[in-house]
Structure formats: structure tokens, C-alpha cells
């Protein structure tokens, strides 16, 4: 057992930390509450940030050298996430492109596809969104019905995708579409579509926070060149399942860093409002304890990655842990703050430290997206506990 970073990883961390300090103008939470910003200007800021990170060599670190790789592993990626959380850096807009599509292209794409798509994706010149979920296919993704019919050297695509994060700002979408209606898994293909293709419409989807980061994408006889197929026809499900495992890296350390900052802010807020007593203290303490356990889980995952293990179904633990914790934490925070905790960011009297109201609402999404808590528990009971399925 050894939970210490190696010299090499420590060096990476220290360089990154120094780089962040030199290059990040303001923490993200300060940008968020700056009234000069619009949704668009915030996206632009994230785009600029991604470009900076790319130039500095912090994106695609674990990819082949020709695509920006530097022989890094999950360890560097996890350190990157933790340090970015500590510095409160913006989330890059192409996180799904780089997280999912990049690996898909590297492992299953053609050389031409890699040359065409990877550089602008890394440089944030083209923003990608993900077209997996549909109104009728969420937890049960394989029930998707968006169809792609081959017509000459084009696919003709019809259907609807939903929960396309950053859809309203994206240039491209990577889609799972059904090329064979009779084969549940083997009838799905992985196709890249430019969003300005005639027949494709993007609609904003407003969230309960009032923001519209999500979108819906409609396909009506949209013609997409056959060369935009990744892998072979019918390989889409297999490709998607492989890359989805990448989506869930060792994120616990990054989450724990962020939650610790907010728990500390909550304690400061309580002090400022004259809110003391053992009941308040016990609530803060239980949050802190649970967050430390999340950190321990993160250290363990990180060490396992460093030890050469691949992410397995245990990543479901991580997802359930942080998302269920987040819900409880944000709820307790509002109870400790009182009515002022429910104020909109822009309201008079709203605290400037954390957007408590938005975080409370946003926490409801964590147990739903990227595989709901229910799906994660199904995965654990099936693949880890090997319980009998009926």
C-alpha cells in the first residue's frame, strides 16, 4: 500500500498548479456572479480556457503522441481534475468530445476521421455534443429509435436526441442511431453529424435551474455522409459502451476538493450569521466526514489506476457516492442558511461565496445523468454482486 504520488506525478502536479496560478485570471465562481456575463460570454470564456489548456499540453494527455498525448495515464488526468477543482477553473466546453468521442475515434475511427476531427476538438474550434439519449430511451439506452438509413453514400437520419449538453453551442454531434430495427444492440451505429446539416434542428431545453445548457436535437431526413460512420455499421453499441467507461474516471478527488471548499464556506457563513450550537456543528461535521470518505475512495481509485488497473463497474460506487452526497449536502446547507439560502444569485442579500440555491437545484441532476442511481445500483447488483437476475 502506498498512497503517495510518485516523484514524477508530484512534479506534474506542481507544474500544473503553478501553471493554473499563472494562467487562470479568476475563479469560476467569480465569473459566474459577474453581472457582465451572459450565457454566451461564459461559454466563450470556457472555450478560451480550453484553448489555453490545449496549448499548454493538458488535454488528451493519455492519447497517442500525435494527438497531443504525453504518455500520461488516469493518474495525471485525475490530478488535473483535482487541481482544476482546487483552482476553481472553468469546465472545458468539449469535455464530452474529449472524454467520449476522442477515445472512440482513437480506438475505432479511421485515420482520416482522426486527422479531420481531433485537432479542432482539442482546440475548441469545434464544439461537440453527445447524441445518445432520446425521449424514449434514457436509462434503457438500447431502446433508442433514431434511425439512419443508408441511401447511396449518405445516411438519412430521422429521430430526436435529448439532454445534449451544450447542444445550443455545439457545431457537431456524435450520434447513436439505429441502422437495423430488428437487432437491439447490433443494430446501432455511431455517426458524426454536423449540426448545420439541413434537416437538423437544435432547440434549447431549459433546466429547473433556469439555465439552458441542455438541448434537444431533431433529425428530419438529415443526410450525413457515410464517411462519418465511426467503426462499422452495427458497432455503435459496443463503441459507446467502451468509451462510456472512460467518462467515469477517478473524479472523487476533484469532487472532494470542491465540496470541502463549499463545506468550509458554509461553516464561515454560519459563523457570520451567528449560527452556532452543537446541532449546527454536528451537521457540518457529518458532511465533512463523508467528504473525507469520498476523498479516501478517490485516493484508492487513483492508486488503483496508478497500479495499472482499468476503471471497472466499481466506478458506479463513485457516481452514487458523490451524487447522493451532493443532494444531502446542498439540502443541509439550505437548512443551515435559512431563507436567504434560497435566493437567486442576482438577488439582493444573496451570499457571494457560493450560489447555494443553484447548487441545491443542480444537485437533483447528479443522480439522474450519466446513468441514474437506479442504473448504477443495477450495475452493482449484476456485475459486482452477481445477484440472480430474473
Amino acid at each position: 500500500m502506498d498512497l503517495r504520488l510518485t516523484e514524477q506525478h508530484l512534479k506534474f502536479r506542481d507544474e500544473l498548479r503553478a501553471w493554473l496560478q499563472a494562467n487562470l485570471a479568476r475563479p469560476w465562481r467569480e465569473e459566474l456572479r459577474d453581472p457582465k456575463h451572459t450565457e454566451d460570454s461564459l461559454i466563450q470564456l470556457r472555450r478560451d480556457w480550453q484553448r489555453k489548456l490545449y496549448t499548454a499540453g493538458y488535454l488528451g494527455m493519455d492519447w497517442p503522441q500525435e494527438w497531443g498525448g504525453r504518455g500520461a495515464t488516469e493518474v495525471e488526468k485525475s490530478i488535473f481534475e483535482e487541481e482544476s477543482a482546487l483552482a476553481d477553473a472553468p469546465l472545458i466546453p468539449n469535455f464530452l468530445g474529449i472524454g467520449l468521442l476522442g477515445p472512440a475515434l482513437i480506438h475505432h475511427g479511421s485515420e482520416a476521421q482522426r486527422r479531420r476531427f481531433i485537432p479542432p476538438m482539442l482546440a475548441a474550434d469545434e464544439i461537440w455534443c453527445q447524441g445518445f439519449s432520446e425521449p424514449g430511451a434514457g436509462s434503457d439506452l438500447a431502446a433508442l429509435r433514431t434511425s439512419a438509413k443508408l441511401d447511396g453514400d449518405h445516411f438519412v437520419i430521422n429521430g430526436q436526441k435529448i439532454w445534449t449538453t451544450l447542444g445550443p453551442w455545439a457545431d457537431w454531434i456524435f450520434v447513436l442511431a439505429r441502422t437495423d430495427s430488428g437487432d437491439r444492440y447490433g443494430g446501432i451505429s455511431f455517426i458524426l453529424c454536423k449540426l448545420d446539416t439541413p434537416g437538423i434542428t437544435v432547440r434549447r431545453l431549459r433546466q429547473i435551474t433556469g439555465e439552458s445548457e441542455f438541448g434537444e436535437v431533431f433529425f428530419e431526413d438529415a443526410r450525413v455522409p457515410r464517411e462519418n460512420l465511426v467503426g462499422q455499421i452495427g458497432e455503435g453499441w459496443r463503441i459507446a459502451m467502451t468509451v462510456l467507461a472512460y467518462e467515469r474516471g477517478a473524479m472523487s478527488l476533484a469532487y472532494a476538493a470542491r465540496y470541502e471548499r463549499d463545506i468550509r464556506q458554509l461553516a464561515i457563513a454560519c459563523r457570520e450569521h451567528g449560527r452556532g450550537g452543537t446541532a449546527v456543528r454536528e451537521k457540518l461535521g457529518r458532511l465533512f466526514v463523508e467528504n473525507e470518505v469520498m476523498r479516501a475512495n478517490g485516493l484508492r481509485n487513483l492508486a488503483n489506476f496508478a497500479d495499472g488497473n482499468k476503471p471497472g463497474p466499481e466506478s458506479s460506487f463513485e457516481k452514487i457516492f458523490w451524487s447522493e452526497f451532493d443532494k444531502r449536502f446542498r439540502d443541509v446547507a439550505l437548512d443551515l442558511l435559512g431563507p436567504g439560502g434560497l435566493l437567486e444569485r442576482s438577488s439582493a442579500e444573496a451570499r457571494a461565496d457560493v450560489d447555494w440555491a443553484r447548487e441545491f437545484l443542480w444537485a437533483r441532476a447528479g443522480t439522474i445523468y450519466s446513468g441514474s442511481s437506479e442504473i448504477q445500483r443495477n450495475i452493482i447488483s449484476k456485475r459486482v454482486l452477481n445477484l440472480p437476475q430474473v
Partner: protein
Amino acid sequence: MKFELSEDQALLRNSTRDFLASEWPIEQARKVMEHDPRGYDLSAWKRLADMGYIGLLLPPNVGGQGLGAIELAIVLEEVGRAAMPGPFLDAVLAAALLAAAGRQDALVNDIAAGKTLVTIARDDAPFCGGNATPTRFTGNRVGGTKYFVPFAAAADALLVTTPDALCLVQKPFEVIALTTFDLAQRFGEVKLDHAATAIGSPSLLDRVDQLAAVGASATLLGLMSRALEITLEYVQTRTAFKRPIGSFQALQHRLADMLLKTESTRSAVYRAAWCVDTDAPDTAIACAAAKAYAGDASRLVCGEAIQMHGGIGFTWELDLHVYFKRAKTLEQHYGSTEAQIEHTLAAAGF
């Protein structure tokens, strides 16, 4: 002995449900929440008054219906179900407070008639904690700052609580909007340095607080009942893995718990209302316990409702978030859960 509503009470429930269905379908409620800067609709407010709802608790000689806490609970359960925006409970409580102070004048009449809006200004700080500076009443003037004053921007007068006396203050007020995620209720911060009329001792609030607890917990009951109903419909029709999701046992057990919480809230709310109406010895306990329990239960049920809807539950378009936000907000007001737990203990002699 009977838990079911009496014939008159059942009639009130049905007529209220019908009235709200035609006046406040959820589309209309959401339109007002999202687009009316006042947070409620004046002509609809007048019709609510004309139907006698605002004067529900007032004696007939000031334009009221002379009804009790059970009827208040019945109406507010429907208000919760409809997610009706506006200062209804606030106006009812202000009127009850004035009536309790012996006022039988035009002001009370005008409140009942929907012509004048009065709400109660209580909070001395925007956040919980010991740092509040109480508003004071001396020499017929009231001074201080009140926070989270319901519908302060629309109010014609405020009933201001101070340790010295309850006092009545007429507009104009300087109001700073306090905007929360609950669009059904608007709040303001009001700086007071006003001439004021004392209307009675702070102890008059005791009974009004019990009515507030009944009213708020009945609203929470309505919110959670409706959120559960919406969810039960959804899980019957939504399919995953070729089955309605309501057939999955993990969801079934949680739905059973949601129903248990909802029905237990119903027991607690109507028991509390009945206690108020019959001046039962355990009224204070019953009211505080109902509000404390309803707050927790309603947030949990409305939250589970969102979770079971999956992604669609997180959209602005679906109505569930309105219920969820209302539930969390009501948890904090009309005696927060924490405050009601303390009231329960104090009333029980702990």
C-alpha cells in the same frame, strides 16, 4: 367520531378544486409566476375574494365566512395542489391577526374583499442565526429592517412584529426584492422608519402561528399529493426495458414510502386543524409537529418525484420543479422545521 370531511367540508373541497381548476390551471399558474412581476394576478385575486376565500376565517360582520382551521386546511391543500401563486395564506393570516386584535373596521373588510393587501413582516435577518437585530416600536414609530416580507412590493400595509408590540404600517415602503427560486411567492426587504399604530401585544401571534402552521403544512400536503399523483401516472406509462417503470420493485417500494409519508402528513395536518378548531389541549404540539413533519415529507416526496421522472424531471417545462421549489421554500417559512421542532418540545414541556 369521523376523520372524513363533513358534507359541507367536502363541498368546500370540491368547489375549491373546481374553482382552481378553472381559474388556476397549472399553465396559468406558471404564466403568472414567470411573467407577472407582482407574482399574482389582480383580477384573479378579486375573484378569489369574491368567492369568500380571503375572508374564510373572519367573522361575517367583517365580510368573512366564519369558518375554521379545517376549512383553511382544505382550501390550502387545494392551493398547494394547484401550485397557485400569490399572497393567499399571507392575507388570510394578516386578517386573522387583525381580527384577533379586535379590529373590525374597514381595513379588515377591505382585506376580505381583496381591495387591500396586508401581510405580516416578521424576519429580522435574511439568514438563520443569532445576528438578527429586532425591529423596535417606540413613540408610535417603527424602525428597523424586515426581511422576506411576503409580497412586500404589492402590500398596502404591513403588520410588523416587534418585541414591543405588533404594529400596523401604511405604504409607501422602500422595498428591495428578495428573489428566490420559488416563483409562487415573492418576498421583499423593507427598511422601516415609519409612523405606526400599535394593534396589540406580540402574544397575539400565538394563535396566528398555529393557523400559519396548519395553512403551510396543508399547502405542503397539497404539493406532495399532486407530485405523487403526477409520478404515479408517469410510472404507469413510461417504459424501460420493455416494462412500465412502475413495475420495478425498487421504485414500487419507494412509491409506497412516498404514499406513507403523504398520508401521514394528511393525518397530522387535519388533526392539527381539528385541534385548533376545538381548542384541544394538544393544539400547540399538533400544529408544530404537523408543520415540522410536512416540510421534511414534502421535500422528500417532491424530490423523489423528480428522480423517478429521470431527465425530463429536471426540465423547466415539466411542472414538478415548481412543486419541489415550493416545498423547500415552505419548509423555511411559517416556522422553519427547526423552529417547529423547538415549539413542539417547548409545548410538550421538554
